[in-house]
């Protein structure tokens, strides 16, 4: 239903018109996927019997009001199995004032710059892959990191013969995602979140080096969060205060038709839960988290029609260490390794088709929320998953 609606609406969504003397641009994107896996059901879909439940799309409008001021907004909708629920969200809506090349300010609901692709992860057309490496760009947790309500200060510097440094510094309120993987995972353990609030502050620097095609990046993000909810199996009402520090390091090399990426990200912090097990239980417990992920990818464009690529992605919940309360977990719960290979066909200027194979090992721990959920795999999660994805995308 959502796919049919988007297919009908989006191809006619592109437009450019004048309003009160200002040129207004309208752009849109849409994608529809099919997933088939041999073992575990993936991303909350019944993929072991084949599933078309991967649909998303968005439309934006923007215009330049003065030579320094630009405004715009984008709506986004997705239904990925049980994630998203086809709920239309305001993806970003901002006013952007550029004082000069060195300093600008962007305020409103703003996409969060973190790593190479956090702010563009939704638009499959922009990437070689049908699924970005899930160790860094998890579809499940996308809603928690995609944007913030606040202010960005950005700009760039080009010191003599040192390339270009582009920076973004930001702060604001973090979004709540009631239909994301975090809440979905908790619900499988009888934990339901009624209220979620938090703040975010961070910075990102990308250095386009003097060496042609080489870019280095570093990102930092602090995002304390408070969850209020109910544990319906053990305890009752509870409150959780989470402290988390995220860092990412990125390398990108593009030369002629080649593109090579490497990224590493780490999330450290802890969650202090008040009244975790109700009457008779401890008044509070602190759960440490130290997860990390990395991937390396390579892609080559043969011609206007065909690009082929591969990546290897690894996610390590709690950095693959034993932590209190999780010692019982089997080895497959201590990592998710994913080897992917993709053929991307740009069948028309605004249409692309991707055929992608994933060969995955492991499924992560209960707090991982990356594709594998107990409620979708009632017979138990298996250590290995082979997955085929075919994804059709449109954007204009």
């Amino acid at each position, binding site marked *: 239903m959502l796919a049919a609606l988007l297919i009908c609406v989006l191809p006619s969504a592109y437009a450019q018109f004048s309003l009160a003397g200002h040129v207004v*641009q309208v*752009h849109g*994107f849409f994608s529809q996927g099919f997933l088939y896996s041999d073992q575990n059901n993936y991303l909350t879909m019944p993929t072991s019997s084949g599933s078309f439940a991967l649909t998303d799309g*968005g439309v*934006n409008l*923007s215009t*330049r009001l003065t*030579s320094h001021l*630009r405004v*715009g907004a*984008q709506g986004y909708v997705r239904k990925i199995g049980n994630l998203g629920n086809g709920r239309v969200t305001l993806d*970003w809506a*901002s006013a*952007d004032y*550029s004082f*000069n*090349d060195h300093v600008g300010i*962007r305020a409103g609901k*703003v*996409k969060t710059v973190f790593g190479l692709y956090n*702010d*563009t992860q*939704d*638009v499959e*057309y*922009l990437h070689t892959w049908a699924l970005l490496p899930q160790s860094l760009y998890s579809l499940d947790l996308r809603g928690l990191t995609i944007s913030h309500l606040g202010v960005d200060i*950005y700009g*760039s510097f*080009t010191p003599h013969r040192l390339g*270009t440094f*582009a920076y973004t510094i930001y702060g604001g309120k973090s979004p709540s995602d009631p239909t994301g993987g975090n809440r979905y995972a908790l619900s499988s353990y009888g934990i339901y979140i009624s209220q979620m609030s938090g703040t975010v502050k961070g910075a990102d620097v990308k250095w386009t080096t003097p060496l*042609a*095609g080489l870019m280095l990046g570093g990102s930092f993000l602090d995002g304390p969060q408070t969850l209020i909810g109910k544990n319906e199996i053990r305890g009752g009402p509870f409150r959780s205060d989470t402290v988390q520090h995220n860092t990412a390091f990125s390398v990108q090399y*593009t*030369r*002629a*038709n080649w*593109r090579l990426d490497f990224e590493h990200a780490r999330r450290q912090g802890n969650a202090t839960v008040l009244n975790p097990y109700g009457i008779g239980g401890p008044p509070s417990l602190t759960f440490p988290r130290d997860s990390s992920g990395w991937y390396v990818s390579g892609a080559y*464009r*043969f*011609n*206007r*029609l*065909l690009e082929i690529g591969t990546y290897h992605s690894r996610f390590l919940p709690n950095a693959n260490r034993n932590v209190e309360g999780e010692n019982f977990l089997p080895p497959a719960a201590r990592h998710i390794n994913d080897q992917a290979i993709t*053929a991307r*066909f*740009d069948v028309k200027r605004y249409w692309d088709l991707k055929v992608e194979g994933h060969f995955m090992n492991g499924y992560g721990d209960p707090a991982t929320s990356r594709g594998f959920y107990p409620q979708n795999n009632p017979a138990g999660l298996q250590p290995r998953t082979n997955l085929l994805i075919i994804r059709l995308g449109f*954007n204009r």
Partner: protein
Amino acid sequence: MMQRGKQRRGPLGHACAVLFAALSMAGAVRAEGLKVIAHPDVPVSEISAAELKSIFLLMKTSIKGSRVEPVIDGSSLRTFSFEYLGKTDQGLEIYYRSRVFAGTGSMPARFVSPADVVAHVARTRGAISYVSEDTPASGVKTLRVR
């Protein structure tokens, strides 16, 4: 004796045939002379290749305090993008769209005909573009690239 013409292809054979057809479509980029043009009010007569790259990657929006904006000539984009920006034309398109969908930029004005590019640059303050060397460029200034 096997009759090759009547040999039936399996699914793998079809996949290989599609892949081969796609690979054989690869074309070489033909180098051709381009000149960089600008609106007469742009306050320079020459521009560095690095500045030109920054302008077309939307990272530089002014020269000597004067606002500038890139204009795309679709007819020679492939050559310009490859030689001046180090990107394929598809890579540049993806770059622009990533800025549009992340809310950090707008799509530059784009024209298919070089004559339309010249006309747009001539009437738009701060506009900078490129056209093939043999394109008549009345009403605009030509910038030397150093």
